[in-house]
């Protein structure tokens, strides 16, 4: 009998890649979190100390919750903003919709860092927005709105800006694959456009919406670049703490590993719940 190597041949490379660059690094991080590996010389072995300290630290857990809340808000706002755009592009019969789609994702052609830094120019005390407020007489030059930059608001604003185009894509795909005859049927049966949207379009596009929500939530809950650039102290998030534990602060890789793994576990659980109950697989 001839051995069929097609499947293992096709899966071998991606699985090997995943094992080498995902599973093994996570195993190493886990080893640090249990003190199996340690930066500090001297005897060490399996210990749950770092996990125990983390789970009993109100500071870290509070910071985690702060990041989750911020990320949930950002994800919700991004989806709410991206949906109408995707809806228009998918359901309009304009021939230019792919050109418009290209325009939507045009910001991706520039550096992420550059886009974030540009917001500093806009939000600063002497930035575009504050200068405008002074010009129209809403604020005096000595009292600009200082909360615009180096704040939680700035982090949310920039994250929303960065993610909207990205999130519009899965929603667009979901809406474009919608069977238009269903909408026609709904109208024939007397449904208004609003009712047709709420009872046909929205439920059918929900897998795309959920996928889009996860696309934002998963990376933003561990985000550290944007908060470190525009967040100031009030925009300091869980991801920043992980970076500090590994690098900027005095190295504490045990605690840093615990924080990183905890984030991974929560995100995995969150994704699992969504996938199980909302059947994200339908998106495909």
């Amino acid at each position: 009998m001839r051995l069929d190597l097609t499947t293992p041949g096709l899966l071998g490379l991606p699985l090997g890649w995943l094992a080498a660059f995902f599973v093994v690094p996570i195993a190493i991080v886990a080893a640090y979190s249990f003190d199996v590996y340690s930066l500090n010389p001297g005897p060490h072995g399996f210990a749950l100390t770092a996990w125990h300290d983390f789970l009993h630290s109100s500071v870290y857990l509070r910071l985690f919750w702060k990041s989750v809340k911020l990320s949930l808000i950002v994800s919700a706002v991004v989806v709410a903003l991206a949906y109408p755009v995707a809806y228009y592009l998918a359901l309009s019969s304009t021939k230019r919709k792919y050109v418009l789609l290209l325009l939507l994702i045009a910001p991706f052609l520039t550096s992420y860092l550059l886009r974030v830094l540009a917001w500093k120019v806009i939000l600063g005390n002497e930035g575009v927005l504050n200068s405008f407020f002074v010009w129209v007489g809403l604020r005096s030059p000595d009292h600009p709105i200082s909360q615009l930059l180096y704040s939680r608001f700035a982090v949310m604003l920039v994250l929303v800006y960065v993610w909207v185009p990205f999130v519009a894509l899965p929603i667009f795909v979901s809406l474009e694959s919608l069977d238009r005859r269903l909408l026609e049927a709904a109208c024939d049966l007397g449904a208004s456009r609003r009712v047709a949207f709420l009872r046909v379009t929205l439920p059918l596009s929900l897998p795309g919406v959920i996928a889009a929500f996860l696309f934002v939530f998963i990376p933003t809950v561990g985000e550290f670049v944007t908060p470190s650039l525009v967040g100031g102290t009030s925009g300091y998030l869980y991801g920043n703490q992980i970076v500090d534990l590994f690098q900027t602060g005095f190295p504490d890789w045990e605690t840093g590993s615990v924080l990183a793994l905890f984030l991974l576990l929560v995100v995995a659980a969150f994704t699992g719940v969504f996938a199980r109950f909302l059947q994200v697989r339908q998106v495909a």
Partner: protein
Amino acid sequence: MEHEGDLLERKLSRDDLLKLAAATGGAGLLAGRTGIADAARAHFAAESGRLQVLDWAGYGNDGGQSMFAAYVKKYPKNKPQFTYMTNEADALAKIHAGLKPDLFRPYAGWVKYFATSGLVQPWTPKLIKNFKHLNPFMIKAGQYNGKQYGIPADWGFDAILYRSDKVKPKSRSWGLLFDDRYRDRIAWYDDPVLPLIVAGLYYRFKDPWNQTDAQLKKSQKLLMAKKPRMIWSSETDMDAAFASGDIWIAWAWPADYWTMKGKKLKVVYMRPKEKPISWVGMFMLLKGSSRPTLAHAYVDAWSSAKSGKWLEDNYGYGHSNTLARPSSSDLLRALQLDNPRAVTLPNAIFDRDVPRRALYAKLWDEVKAS
């Protein structure tokens, strides 16, 4: 045990001489003592590849080229290659993560930590021609157990920079960093230990570098309660925020004062009555470096009076070479560059080792996370 870095300490045996003579076609012997020295140098300097330097931003090929121009001229095939560090803890993390620089430049408070960490090896001062011109106090600060682990380079202060047209301090104190009136306009420096030390100075604790548990708790509470708008780890970010008017009061270094003066801002570099913290950059040689001779040559270039003057003129920091003098008499006065003990009391409190560094760092992390 012979030390790796102790190159000139090696005695040239008769065998060595013969080998060297053979290696150089007898040129060394024929040319006399100088020729032998050159041959020896060439022999020991058989080090290849680019010198790996872990340094602070602004001191590599991103603006600091004048500091090591003499080295590049002498060793054009071994030009330095830089990796940048944001602070000593960052450098430590990078080294732990597998980076293998030949040398790096932490500050004096870390000399003991690194000397006892097993990560570094002592220098051989005889290989550094300019060593004799370096400030004796700073040289001593680079020693541990009688060995020269740190070669002093730049020096300066941690103090407070503020906009004199916007800020009216209640007193000349570190308390300005905790002033609620300007909370939205204040920036602190992100360092694992220094903020707690400054809080300790503000409270006038006996030894802010070695606070008791109760003192640490009090310092941490102060920092949590007064956390400002910005905590900077990138000097460039802080300078940009200060220059744009987002920040009026900053924990800053002399270079920042110099930069803001250059931008024509009305600024004061305040020396708190509790005393500023002074520091000296210390070049350290990594254990296992495969280019120790090149590292010595690099540090020698940095240590020259010419490099020192350039540093003072362009960055506004002091330099450990006592012959270096800036062009500006203002800077000379401001930093007391002609005072060999400018970094010590009564002028400033010299940074030193923190015995419970990990605990300080953990408390500081909690401040940021709070």
